[in-house]
């Protein structure tokens, strides 16, 4: 298509604009690549320093290559505990938030009901509130209720800010869903349950999964809201925060890189599965 457009331009307005267009096209590519490079710069550093053979406490000067840290990523029991806690919190938060959010998304897209506006507003507000306010306000609630901050409060906090993300994600998917397919399936003789299972669910499943993955990632990474509501519990981001005050061990880089690898692996897997299904 670009070539067609180019042909039109050339024939109508001469070479000047086409030359400009040419430069523009490549300038954009170069620019985009530079930005991508910029995005990955800290990641390179993180990954690189996970292999650093550190002598003393500090990990910021390259001293040599070692696989040691990758072999023993959980040398520090506190790191291991924090990672386990983060995973547990993320798992539970994901299930709850995805369930609650999907239900809301369904209601919003499929049905017309009284209170759509306020509902949309309520979904939107947590997304547009800074995390620090979310965390602080939740803490005030727990203070008033005399609830000791800890595991439960972390989960509650994570579910709270995640629901909106699920709603937005699933709703986007639901909107592009062709509801006539359901009617067609019913017309062809399928009952509601079969329709749901064989037609609706497979088609909207990616949306729900996307929402769930989003929640999981958000939960694992969350720092601010957790900081306010974790009490004595230490999640992985909180551990990094504490460790960075003195000297962040290279294992932190290892875990960071691992999370990255898992993400890559997950996407590759999803892609392959999709290819097979198609």
């Amino acid at each position, binding site marked *: 298509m670009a070539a067609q457009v180019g042909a039109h331009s050339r024939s109508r307005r001469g070479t000047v604009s086409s030359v*400009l267009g040419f430069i523009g096209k490549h300038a954009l590519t170069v620019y985009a690549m530079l930005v991508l490079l910029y995005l990955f710069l800290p990641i390179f550093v993180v990954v690189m320093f996970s292999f650093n053979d550190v002598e003393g406490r500090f990990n910021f000067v390259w001293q040599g290559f070692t696989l040691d840290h990758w072999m023993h990523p959980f040398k520090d029991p506190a790191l291991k505990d924090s990672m386990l806690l983060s995973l547990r919190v993320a798992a539970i938060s994901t299930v709850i938030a995805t369930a609650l959010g999907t239900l809301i998304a369904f209601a919003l897209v499929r049905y017309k009901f009284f209170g759509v506006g306020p509902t949309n507003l309520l979904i939107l507000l947590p997304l547009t509130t800074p995390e620090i306010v979310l965390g602080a306000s939740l803490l005030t609630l727990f203070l008033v209720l005399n609830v000791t901050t800890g595991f439960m409060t972390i989960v509650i906090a994570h579910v*709270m800010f995640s629901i909106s993300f699920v709603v937005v994600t699933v709703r986007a998917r639901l909107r592009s869903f062709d509801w006539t397919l359901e009617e067609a399936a019913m017309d062809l003789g399928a009952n509601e349950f079969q329709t749901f299972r064989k037609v609706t669910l497979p088609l909207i499943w990616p949306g729900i999964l996307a929402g769930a993955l989003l929640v999981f990632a958000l939960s694992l*990474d969350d720092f601010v809201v957790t900081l306010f509501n974790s009490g004595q519990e230490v999640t992985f981001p909180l551990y990094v925060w504490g460790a960075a005050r003195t000297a962040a061990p290279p294992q932190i880089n290892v875990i960071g890189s691992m999370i990255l690898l898992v993400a890559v692996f997950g996407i590759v897997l999803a892609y392959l599965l999709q290819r097979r299904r198609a």
Partner: protein
Amino acid sequence: MAFGRLRPLLPYILLAPGLVFLLVFFVVPMYTLLRQSLNEGTLETGFHFAWNWSNYSDVLKRYDEQFIRSFRYAATATVLAFILGYPLAYFIAFRGGRFKSYLLFLVVLPFFTTYLIRTLAWQTILSDQGDVLTLMRDLGLLDITDKLGISQNGRLLATPTAVVMAITYNFLPFMVLPCYVSLERIDRRLVEAAQDLYGGPVRAFMRVVFPLSLPGVFAGSLLTFIPAVGDFINAEILGSPRTFMIGNVIQSRFLELNDYPEAAALSFILMAAILLAVLVYARLLGTEELA
């Protein structure tokens, strides 16, 4: 079947669990936050509700600098994110072709690493004695940046530059993704027609593509600006006491000094200010649609 009677109630049944959860854990806390902001006392003497509006005036007077600074940094970061992110989004949407998904994935991938780890990496990269700064120093670049006010005394850490740069970095995907979604939705035939009509890709872009992508720009700006205003991690790790943002103050008041009333007042003012800024921005752009 009994379903018949439940039919009209169905949406409400679906909504109930989630909305109740949000009501209890999002709306009610806003109320408790408000109440807390009107309290007086300390943790030791106990907090009592006292319609203590002086909390608000006190903190506004004392921390006006941090408030203004936060908005300045966040606005700058948003603009920078736009400058960096929009072309990238455009590139992926219009030139990505088969690789669109991969490119998008590449944009998002760095942000799977924990926020803190990324920011700490910037601390290493920008370290005074680190490779980047040493190179800049040897090339004489630091003198130039000193004069421009970008660096201070030959260092990048503990300057507003580092903080703003890191905020931009950390929220870049929030700009790229919405812009991409908006750009991607634009019908290519419209673009083609526009290029024919307006004589050139540049004018077509300005007249057609960009305006059509405004909802995405709007969403992206908000998703960047709002979290950025309340951020404190970048300021803490890469900044100095002179770059403290309102987030740092709130965090310190809440978690280090247990001064809940003032911290709550600060939070409320922050929220109100953001809401105001968003409304103004929305008026300017003339759109209310989000994400």
